[in-house]
């Protein structure tokens, strides 16, 4: 009889008046891998944060180690109780070494209370050997690649000797070999009787690794089934539920003139903040076309966009926009030349969160509202137009953008660039953190924009999105373009093969 390690019953949680978890049940048994899947915003990470003691639920109970209680008083308490979580976002200390990170707060000490360096080294070595044999114990974490950092995170979670280990999208930045090693580690944990929770979008992984799978949709529980009793279609149906408007596939096979032509874009051979990554990237985009860029994290797509937009010191290459050679050394140059860029991280480098919707929309085209005296009234009217056209849900255009939901924030950012009306628009992860409904709206916006005779370049890590929206797809890997596919010849497998190299 499988032992139930952890049970969560009827968990409810709201943030700022919005209900994120609506009475969810979840349990973990010893010696199992229990997968958790659902769309962005379904509540997976919130649920895990509650288990890990980071948040406390508004209602419901948690049964762990024989006793039932309302919440874990703190993340530390959860950790001590034997629950360990490998977060999607890094929680490592950059300037410290690997060993120091793994045992942060729990370093082995000598009798005098000083850190026992040799013991620290040995213990860390033991943990790392299983997970990441190629990482040195005294390497500075900040110097490691994102994938290696992830392995250190995993080693840290393992070292806690937990009864329940939670992995939140652990393979996003890993290669095939690293993923295989991770799976081996997870299987070992399972054999030891640990309960493993595995959150992932990648359904193939769930079918490879998990024993049971739970689906969440919009904060509600949508079923827990043994993996052998379900399949991809069933899971997807539970995850998405309603019929999302399938974007009308553009019947066009040929498009207008070449609007954007990039030849041999390469990074200069420099050391420093920007390691040389791009190598002879060449592509083109036609008027009316949406060109997608697929690839795994670290493939260089955002770096390419930043190089084109004048942010990244450019090495060599030719860029032609609507027949004219352009030299772009700053975003201002790029905008003047007719290029736009919707940045990858809207909160960090896109939006002005403490400024109003109206001011966010006008940010890249202030001169339109007056060279000297600023016409606030006109700015407001234009913002209202966009608000209606894009269906941005906000009290009024005077509201601070920081208060809007992710999808609406993204719409505001896109509105800014629609106002600029560039001939070529690059959008980077345009629907990250955006719910299914808004996602479809954003896709339609891009499609309409392209149809007006512009070229759109979309960078996305969501394969379904790339496949739905793009007319042509370029795949990048390690700073180079590994392939170009027409929509008709593209599928998740063909793209993945080009993206992952198929070698590891």
């Amino acid at each position, binding site marked *: 009889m499988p032992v139930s390690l952890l049970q969560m019953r009827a968990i409810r949680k709201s943030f700022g008046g919005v209900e994120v978890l609506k009475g969810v049940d979840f349990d973990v048994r010893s010696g199992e891998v229990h997968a958790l899947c659902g769309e962005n915003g379904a509540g997976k990470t919130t649920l895990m944060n509650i288990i890990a003691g980071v948040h406390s639920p508004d209602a419901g109970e948690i049964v762990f180690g024989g006793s039932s209680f309302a919440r874990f008083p703190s993340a530390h308490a959860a950790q001590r109780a034997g629950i360990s979580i490998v977060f999607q976002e890094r929680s490592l200390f950059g300037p410290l070494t690997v060993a120091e990170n793994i045992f942060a707060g729990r370093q082995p000490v000598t009798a005098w209370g000083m850190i026992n360096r040799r013991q620290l080294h040995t213990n860390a070595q033991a943990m790392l050997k299983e997970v990441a044999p190629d990482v040195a114990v005294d390497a500075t974490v900040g110097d490691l690649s994102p994938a290696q950092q992830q392995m250190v995170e995993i080693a840290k979670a393992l070292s806690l000797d937990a009864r329940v280990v939670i992995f939140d999208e652990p393979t996003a930045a890993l290669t095939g070999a690293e993923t295989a090693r991770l799976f081996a580690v997870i299987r070992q944990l399972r054999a030891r009787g640990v309960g493993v929770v595995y959150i992932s979008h990648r359904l193939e992984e769930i079918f490879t690794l998990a024993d049971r799978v739970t689906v969440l949709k919009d904060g509600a529980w949508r079923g827990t089934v043994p993996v052998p009793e379900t399949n991809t279609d069933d899971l997807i149906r539970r995850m998405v539920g309603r019929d999302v408007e399938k974007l009308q596939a553009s019947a066009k096979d040929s498009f207008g003139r070449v609007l954007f032509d990039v030849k041999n874009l390469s990074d200069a051979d420099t050391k420093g903040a920007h390691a040389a990554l791009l190598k002879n990237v060449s592509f083109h985009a036609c008027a009316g076309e949406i060109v997608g860029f697929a690839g795994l994290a670290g493939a260089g797509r955002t770096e390419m966009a930043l190089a084109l937009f004048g942010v990244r010191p450019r090495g060599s290459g030719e860029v032609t926009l609507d027949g004219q050679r352009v030299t772009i050394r700053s975003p201002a140059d790029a905008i003047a030349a007719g290029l736009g860029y919707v940045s990858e991280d809207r909160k960090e*480098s896109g939006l002005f969160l403490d400024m109003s919707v109206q001011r966010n929309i006008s940010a890249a085209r202030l001169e339109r509202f007056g060279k000297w005296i600023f016409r606030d009234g006109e700015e407001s009217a234009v913002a209202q137009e966009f608000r209606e056209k894009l269906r941005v849900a906000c009290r009024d255009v005077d509201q601070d953008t920081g208060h809007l939901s992710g999808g*609406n924030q993204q719409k505001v950012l896109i509105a800014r660039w629609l106002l600029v009306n560039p001939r070529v628009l690059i959008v980077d992860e345009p629907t990250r953190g955006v719910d299914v409904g808004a996602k479809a*709206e954003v896709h339609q916006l891009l499609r309409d924009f392209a149809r007006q005779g512009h070229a759109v370049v979309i960078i996305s890590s969501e394969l379904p999105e790339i496949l739905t929206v793009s007319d042509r797809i370029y795949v990048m890997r390690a700073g180079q373009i590994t392939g170009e596919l027409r929509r008709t010849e593209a599928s998740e497998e063909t793209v993945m093969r080009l993206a992952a190299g198929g070698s590891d």
Partner: protein
Amino acid sequence: MQMNSPTPLPDQQSTISNQQSSIKPRRRLTLSRELGLLLLLILIVILFRVLFPTSWNYFATFDNFSSVVRNMAFEGILALGMMLMLVGGTFDLSVGATASMVGVVTGWLMKKAGWPVPVAVTAGLALAAFSGFINGFVVAKVRVNALITTLGTMGIFSGIALLVGGPGITFLPPEFSRLGQAQFLGLQAPVWLMIALGAVGHYCLAHTRFFRQFYYVGSNPKAAFLSGLNVERLQIFSFTLMGLLAGLAGIVYAARVATASSTVGVGKELGAITACILGGASLQGGRGTAWGALLGVLFVALIQNMLLIKQVRPEWQGIILGLVLVFAVAVDAILNRKQGR
């Protein structure tokens, strides 16, 4: 990699946007920092009247008021420049030293080198702008942290002030001091200058496209850069303007008292920053108005005045002012947090 932040808000709102647009927009309940400070000030003045009726008679005279604003002009001009800095997300610790240095150099040029007053003043202002430019260049182009840069120039400028001016340059030419002491409607020229700069500054910050850019830079410099704003050039401009205003403050002060003091600016930079924060600026940038800066200076000046009238020991002034600053900012933070900002 898909993003799953620890606190996701499901974007349900986009699907009910049609219902939202029919809801009447609620009046924003947050008190603007400026209004809040004004109310607090009025409250304090009323308390003073109620608690100390005899002292009130000294306080509530035009002479007293005139003296308060006269003494306020120096810091007022500094605060106006500092407000622009804070809006743009940075600050300048060298302003006090710049004021002293420029005042002293101008005085030296007039007194010891015998230059005609207008020429000396122009030269002084040029020096002021140049010192600001140096700050701006080092911070924006060389990319040295503003704190460290201006701390360094603060030392350099105060050193130059002492070198050139010694203990001070007295008995400046009467053509000069006449300007500083001229009166209009009972208030001295420096006060009117401050008010004029305040009005111009407010208009520029609130209604011109050029100065609007500073709010963007202060709110999110990366996003501003990606939106095509020339962040470096704007930063250099604000430092240069700050230097110019600091120098102007120093010159105006020297004209008022007919003496160029080499230490007039000591400590004044912190006072200016304090006043701006009281008046609504944020150390993070992206917030603040010109009137707010002057209101902040007025607030501090009036409290100091009340303490003076009550003959409170000067040692207590620092303590009380510090407490007032923390109180005012804390109240604002609490109010804003309640609004879910």
